[in-house]
C-alpha cells in the first residue's frame, strides 16, 4: 500500500501547485505509515522529478511517451490508474486543476474510489474514518466530507497547503510504461494555444494577483495594472464586466463563472465587489481594495483598503514597491 501523487509538469518544471500536492501526499503517507510515490504528467525532466524528494516523495514514475506532453484525458487517466495498481495506492492526491478534476473524476469510477475535490486541509483519520475539509458554496463555506471505501482520491486546492522543502533529499526516478495505445489518445489536442502571459506568470498558479474592474475606464489604462503586477511579480486579472466588453481576455476573468483564485495577495483596483466576483477571490489570504467609492461592497471583504482614485494610487504603489526592492 502507498500514497500516489500526480504531479503536473510544464516545460520540464514541476508546477508549483504540484509541489503542494506532493507535500500533501507525503504527509498523508506519513499519517498512514507508508511512503509516497509520484507519477508525472506533462513535459518533465528527470532532474526536476528527482527534486520531488524535497517534498517528501520517495519514488517518481515517469512514462517517457512523448504524447503525454499535452493533456489527454484518456491517456492521463489510464497512466495514473496503471500507476495506482502498480503501487497498490490507497490514496491518490492530485491538484484541483482542470487536469486534476478531469482525470480524478474518471479515476474515481475506474478504481471504485471515493473522491473529494477543492480540499483545503490534511485529512483527519480518527477512529478508522477518513475526513477531509473542502471549500463549498463558492468559497462561502467549508464542508467536512467523509470518504468511504478502501480507496480515496483527493484534489487539493491551490495555495491551501504549504509546500515542504527538505533541501538535498532526492526521489528515485523510475521509468514506467502504462502501455498506452492510440485509442488512449482519442481526445488528444489537434492544437494547443498558450496564452501570452505578461511577465510569464500564470493566473491560476500565481501567489499574487493585481486585478482591474470597470473603474479602470478602458483597456488603454491597463498599463497601470501591469506596472504594479510586474513590480510585485504578480499575475494580472479582471472582473467579468471587463472581459465581457473585451477590454481583457476571458482567461483573466476571476469570479463565479470565471477562474477561482486563492493567492496570498489579491489587489482589486476599481472593482466594486459584486458577490459574483467575490466568489472567485474570497479564499485569497490577503485582499486589498482600491476604489474611489467608500461604499463599494468590496471593502467589507478586504483586509486593507484605500479610498481613492486608482489613477492616482496605482503609480504611487508601483513606485513604493520599486523603492522597497
Amino acid at each position, binding site marked *: 500500500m502507498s500514497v500516489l501523487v500526480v504531479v*503536473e509538469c*510544464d516545460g520540464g518544471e514541476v*508546477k508549483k501547485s504540484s509541489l503542494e500536492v506532493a507535500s500533501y501526499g507525503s504527509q498523508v503517507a506519513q499519517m498512514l505509515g507508508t511512503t509516497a510515490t509520484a507519477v508525472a504528467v506533462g513535459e518533465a525532466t528527470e532532474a526536476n522529478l528527482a527534486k520531488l524528494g524535497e517534498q517528501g516523495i520517495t519514488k517518481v514514475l515517469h512514462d517517457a511517451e512523448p504524447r503525454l506532453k499535452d493533456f489527454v*484525458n*484518456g491517456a492521463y487517466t489510464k497512466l495514473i490508474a496503471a500507476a495506482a495498481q502498480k503501487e497498490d495506492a490507497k490514496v491518490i492526491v492530485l491538484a484541483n486543476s*482542470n487536469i486534476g*478534476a*478531469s482525470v480524478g*473524476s*474518471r479515476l*474515481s*469510477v*475506474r478504481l471504485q474510489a*471515493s*473522491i473529494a475535490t*477543492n480540499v483545503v486541509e490534511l485529512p483527519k483519520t480518527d477512529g478508522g474514518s477518513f475526513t477531509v475539509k473542502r*471549500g*463549498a*458554496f*463558492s468559497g462561502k463555506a*467549508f*464542508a*467536512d*466530507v*467523509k*470518504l*468511504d471505501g478502501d480507496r480515496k482520491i483527493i484534489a487539493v486546492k491551490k495555495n491551501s497547503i504549504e509546500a515542504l522543502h527538505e533541501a538535498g533529499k532526492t526521489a528515485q526516478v523510475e521509468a514506467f510504461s502504462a502501455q498506452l495505445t492510440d485509442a488512449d489518445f482519442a481526445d488528444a*489536442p*489537434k*492544437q*494547443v*494555444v*498558450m*496564452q501570452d502571459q505578461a511577465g510569464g506568470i500564470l493566473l*491560476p*498558479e500565481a501567489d*499574487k494577483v493585481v486585478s482591474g474592474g470597470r473603474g479602470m475606464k478602458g483597456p488603454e489604462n491597463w498599463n497601470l495594472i501591469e506596472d504594479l503586477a510586474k513590480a510585485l511579480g504578480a499575475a494580472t486579472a479582471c472582473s467579468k464586466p471587463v472581459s465581457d466588453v473585451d477590454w481583457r481576455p*476571458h482567461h483573466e*476573468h476571476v469570479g*463565479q*463563472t470565471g477562474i477561482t483564485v486563492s493567492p496570498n*495577495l489579491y489587489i482589486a483596483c476599481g472593482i466594486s465587489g459584486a*458577490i459574483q466576483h467575490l466568489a472567485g477571490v*474570497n*479564499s485569497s489570504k*490577503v485582499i*486589498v*481594495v482600491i476604489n474611489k467609492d467608500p461604499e463599494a461592497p468590496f*471593502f467589507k*471583504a*478586504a483586509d*486593507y483598503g*484605500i*479610498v481613492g482614485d486608482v489613477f*492616482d*494610487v496605482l503609480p504611487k*504603489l508601483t*513606485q*513604493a514597491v520599486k523603492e*522597497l526592492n
Partner: protein
Amino acid sequence: MKFLVCISNVPDTTTKITFTPDNKEFNKAGVQFVINPWDEYALTRAIELKEAQGGGTVTVLNVGEADTEPNIRKALAIGADDAIRVNAHPKDAFFVAQQIASIAKDGGYDVILMGKESIDYNGFQVHGMVGELLNIPTVAPAMKLDMSGNTATLEREIEGGKEIVEVNTPFVASCQQPMCEPRIPNMRGIMTARTKPLKVVEPTADAARTEVSSYALPPAKQGVKLIPAENAGELIKLLRNEAKVI
C-alpha cells in the same frame, strides 16, 4: 441529434449561506433557487446547436426532489423540448452521475452537456464520472463547442491556455463561458413550457461514496484597515511587514 443537458438546482448567487442547527445540511428556508449558472451555458448551447441543425431534441435532466420543478420548467421555457426528473435527493456526485449515465444509456443521447460545476457543491466531478460510466470521452471544461456531423470541435481550457480537441459522438462536455450568451425565457417560451413533457422517474442506483459530516462558515474578516490615499505607499510597507505577503 439528441442532446441531454443536466441541470442542477442551486441557491441563488446572492444567497446568504446558513446551515441547519446540526450543521449537516444547507438551510433552504427562504432561499431562492436557480438553475446553476454554469449549466445555463450547456442548455443554451444545446438549443443553439439544435436550431443550427434544423432538427433534433434537447432533453433536460435533473436529479432532485419535486421542489426543483420550477427550475426544470424554466429550462423548458428557455427552449428545451422535454425534461426528466430523477426523483431523489442528490446525495453526492457519484450518486448523481449514476442516474445520468443510466438515463443517457437508455435514451441513446449523442451529446451530454452540463455546467463545469455547481455553485453550491463546486465538485467539478460529475462530467468525468458520467463519461467513465458510459466509457465515452469527456471534455472538461469546454469553452467552445461546434458540431459538424458526428464530430465535435471543442476548446478545452487548461491552466494557462487551451487545447483544440475533436471527438465523435457520443461524448460528455462540461461547459463554461464564453461558450454562448445564456438565454432567458420569453413569454411564448413560458407559455409553451407548461405543456411540455416532464417525466418523473425513480433512481436506478443508490450508492453514494461520500457524506458531508458537517458544514462550517469561514472565520469572519477582522475588518478593513484603511490607508489614506495621499499616503498610498504605506500600504506596501504594511503588506511586507505586517501581512508578510510581499
